[in-house]
């Protein structure tokens, strides 16, 4: 006997599905179109290049759920619902193909394995997923979730759809005494419930449930773009259109463009359409917020709230802007005008982003650590938006925390944020006899010391260690000496693109002038901007962070490390080394080679917690909430390691400050990797 079942058993006029479906689709399309129009009040930006790479993103991040599954419980929840619904949807299509296209496919093993067994499992998976979701929302609320009516509506709707599906199947099995019932174990289970009912009742209830199931399913489709379920569409779009630039590269502003009326983002329309679409891809899962150092230390910044508040603006202001553009495009005076920039003519006073979507305090609280973006399953871009707003505050309004004045002027006049005399930049190397490019010629490797390594006595020790290491390995290196200027990382992340560009251009001119090809840095901030951002200005170098460089030297056997260090260490991943540049393993390889026992902190590698100094926060006071460096120091101390290892001058400063404040600095040393390697070299000699 050929396994199959009768399609549309007990249903008359199933063909009505199609007009009804059309209605649902029209409502759906209209809703989506409205959103689409709202996104496009934003600026244009090309996010459709490198299509192959974009398609690959879709496979990994959408189908593979690689990011979503990083958090186990919600990851599994989403995986179950997603793949369950995909299977059920496919099943529905198969039914349509068989009944109304005439493909005879619902037979035999395909019917038994897929249409019965797998779809039953799929339904069960969705059910399970929904239960997890309900548990996370209403039984034991998970961190970072906030409940809105929409959340409940969606969950209940899905739950009812799945249940009506199973009930309908159960009734059909019961009424038709389906011989293949065992292949639909869940449906069969429900069938037993109804076994006692009379055939007429079974048939009547079945029909009612079938139609309910249909209407609910179509209702769900129509409801999609009006709820957070729009993410079924926007999440893949957002992933497809995600930035493929290096993580560490902010966009370049063309400051010479005289036509630009504003720099950075003051208003909604200064952001790109992608920025605005982000807000409809966000499902308020809260992962960004759960990992945000500013939020977790009680500062008035939440990346989730930023996106949600922006969403509100898109919906409120965006509608007004669209209306205003419409009026402007068809003015009563008869004069025709293009849409862009005509809001003001139409009398619309657009609100400032700072103050509505982000308070000033929140704006300056961001350390640009990228934990939010690293976690976001749908690739919402929080940090670039924040930087755009900072850019506007600094470049147009000159409105920023007063203490930055000194840092900016210091970088401007003396090429370092402390404003110490530029002529003293190479003093640290005076007694070390380090070669200087200007007098000794271009080396194979330029050693880029950075401001901290040049001026800060604590970090000068790291520079001295680097010199010793490179000499021990026989590296041909030299420094720029007084010709080196601040790389500009802080300036750029504080929104001072003008200052950043002048520093970057000066440095690139110097480096290119000497024909420098390879650069070693000990500061992840220098590393990141030289490697990822200087190409925007014609600076193309092979830039190597000292942790990776040392790891290479050790692997190649070029460092005399016979002596092993003893003891335990915990290693703090710098944001700009780790999350921005994915350098997680080299520092750990160095630690291992030194013979130290690594004890990881609860939050490490891509989940590492910022030290508090990134994004120019190094130059700002931290007056709000708890101090970020203290929270991280406590986490480091919780490992009971006898040493805290870093690979970034800012992290070193912040964590050592933390141990001093905890009064444990005498016992728990905070050391840069280079200093540890130096110890091993010294004890080997």
């Amino acid at each position, binding site marked *: 006997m050929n396994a199959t079942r009768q399609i549309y058993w007990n249903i008359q006029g199933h063909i009505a599905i199609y007009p009804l479906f059309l209605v649902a689709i029209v409502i759906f399309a209209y809703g989506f179109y409205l959103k689409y129009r709202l996104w496009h009040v934003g600026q244009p930006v090309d996010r459709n290049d490198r299509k192959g790479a974009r398609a690959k993103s879709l496979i990994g991040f959408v189908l593979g759920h690689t990011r979503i599954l990083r958090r186990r419980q919600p990851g599994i929840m989403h995986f179950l619902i997603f793949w369950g619904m995909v299977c059920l949807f496919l099943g529905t299509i198969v039914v349509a193909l068989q009944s109304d296209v005439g493909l005879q496919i619902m037979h035999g093993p395909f019917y038994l394995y897929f249409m019965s067994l797998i779809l039953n499992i799929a339904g069960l998976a969705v059910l399970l997923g929904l239960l997890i979701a309900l548990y996370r929302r209403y039984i034991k609320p998970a961190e970072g979730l906030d409940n809105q009516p929409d959340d409940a509506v969606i969950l209940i709707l899905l739950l009812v759809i799945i249940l009506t599906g199973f009930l309908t199947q159960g009734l059909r099995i019961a009424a038709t005494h389906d011989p293949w019932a065992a292949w639909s174990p869940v449906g069969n289970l429900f069938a037993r419930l109804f076994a006692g009912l009379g055939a007429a009742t079974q048939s009547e209830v079945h029909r009612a449930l079938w139609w309910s199931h249909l209407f609910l399913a179509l209702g769900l489709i129509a409801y999609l773009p009006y709820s957070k379920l729009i993410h079924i569409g926007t999440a893949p779009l957002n992933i497809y259109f995600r930035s493929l630039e290096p993580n560490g590269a902010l966009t370049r502003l063309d*400051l010479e463009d*005289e036509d630009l009326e504003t*720099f950075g983002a003051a208003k909604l329309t200064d952001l790109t359409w992608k920025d605005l679409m982000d807000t409809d891809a966000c499902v308020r899962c809260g992962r960004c917020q759960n990992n945000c150092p500013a939020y977790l230390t009680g500062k008035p910044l939440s990346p989730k709230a930023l996106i949600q508040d922006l969403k509100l603006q898109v919906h409120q202001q965006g509608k007004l802007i669209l209306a205003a553009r419409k009026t402007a495009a068809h003015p009563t005076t008869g004069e025709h005008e293009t849409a862009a920039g005509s809001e003001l003519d139409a009398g619309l006073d657009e609100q400032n982003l700072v103050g509505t979507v982000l308070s000033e305090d929140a704006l300056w609280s961001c350390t640009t650590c990228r934990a939010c973006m690293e976690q976001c399953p749908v690739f919402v871009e929080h940090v670039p938006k924040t930087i755009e707003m900072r850019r506007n505050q*600094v*470049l*147009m*309004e*000159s409105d*920023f925390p*007063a203490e*930055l*004045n000194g840092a*900016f*002027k210091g970088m401007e*006049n*003396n090429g370092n944020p402390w*404003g*110490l*005399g*530029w*002529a*003293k930049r190479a003093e640290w190397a005076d007694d070390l006899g380090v070669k200087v490019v200007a007098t000794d010629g271009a080396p194979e490797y330029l050693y880029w010391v950075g401001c901290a390594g040049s001026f800060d006595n604590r970090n000068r020790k790291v520079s001295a260690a680097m010199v010793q290491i490179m000499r021990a390995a026989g590296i041909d290196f030299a420094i720029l000496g007084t010709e080196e200027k601040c790389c500009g990382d802080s300036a750029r992340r504080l929104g001072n*693109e*003008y200052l950043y560009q002048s520093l970057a251009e000066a440095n690139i001119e110097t480096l290119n002038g000497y024909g420098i090809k390879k650069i070693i840095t000990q500061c992840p901030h220098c590393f990141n901007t030289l490697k990822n951002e200087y190409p925007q200005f014609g600076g193309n170098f092979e830039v190597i962070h000292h942790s990776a460089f040392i790891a290479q030297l050790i692997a190649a056997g070029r460092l005399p490390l016979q002596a092993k260090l003893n003891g335990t260490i915990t290693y703090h991943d710098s944001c700009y080394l780790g999350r921005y540049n994915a350098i997680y393993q080299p520092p750990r390889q160095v630690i291992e080679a030194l013979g130290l026992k690594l004890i990881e902190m609860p939050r490490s590698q891509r989940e590492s917690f910022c030290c508090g100094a990134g994004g120019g926060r190094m130059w700002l006071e931290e007056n709000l909430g708890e101090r970020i460096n203290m929270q991280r120091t406590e986490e480091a101390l919780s490992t009971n390691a006898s040493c805290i290892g870093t690979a970034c001058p800012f992290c070193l400063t912040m964590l050592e400050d933390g141990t001093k404040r905890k009064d444990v600095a005498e016992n728990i040393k905070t050391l840069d990797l280079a200093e540890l390697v130096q110890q091993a070299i010294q004890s080997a000699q």
Partner: protein
Amino acid sequence: MRIVVCMKQTFDTEAKIALTADGLIDSTGVTLVVDPYSEFAVEKGIQFKEKFGGEVVIVCIGDTQAETAIRQCMAMGADRAVIVTDPAMDGSDQSATARVLAKAVISQEPDIILGGFKSVDSGSAQVMLRLAEILNLPHVNVVTNIEIGEGKAIATRELDDGVELVEVSLPAIFTAQQGLAEPRYPSVKGIMQAKKKELKRLTLADLDIDPTSVGPANAKVKIHGLTLPAPRKGGRIIGGEIPEATADLVKALRDEAKVI
């Protein structure tokens, strides 16, 4: 209200001072900035303009390099500038500088004149007051606040042991001390606009000043030579028992360092 601010360009305060082979100050590679005291005055001038309307005119004596400093002031919000550039001015003393400045300033018909009470380079702290005397205008020296009233102003003048409020009628000259105003950081908008603002370049001839009446030959005070102070000795840890060490410290501060 027309606010004229006398501005000087100077070395960045962090600049390393070295001498050339001829024994002059070596300016190679030195970062030039708006003198911090001038900058307080510029900021105050702009604040007045924002409050009372009018314009801020920068008056400067200097070479073409000084135009960078002028643009900086314009980026902060100054409206236009007059720069007197003339090789004859090289080596002029404060007396000649004040005389030239006076001509340039008065040509602008100011309601109020501001400037630094001193500069961080020569620091002679006399040009602005000589200017007041030449223009026969009242002045208040070393001020940390100025309140403008109807045709007059009350300035807070620093004393050795406090402050006093001095009233003068306008036009008048005020010299800025730290605290008068916190200079703003120019926006890029300001920097862009500054490029297009009016900068009037004058020579001594344009001001009807005989170039032979200025310069080193006419200086009341002649420069004989420059020297660098003995390099700061690396720090000295005063050893010994604490009571003796502390006594030695006080002695060193008084007799060696001469700071107490």
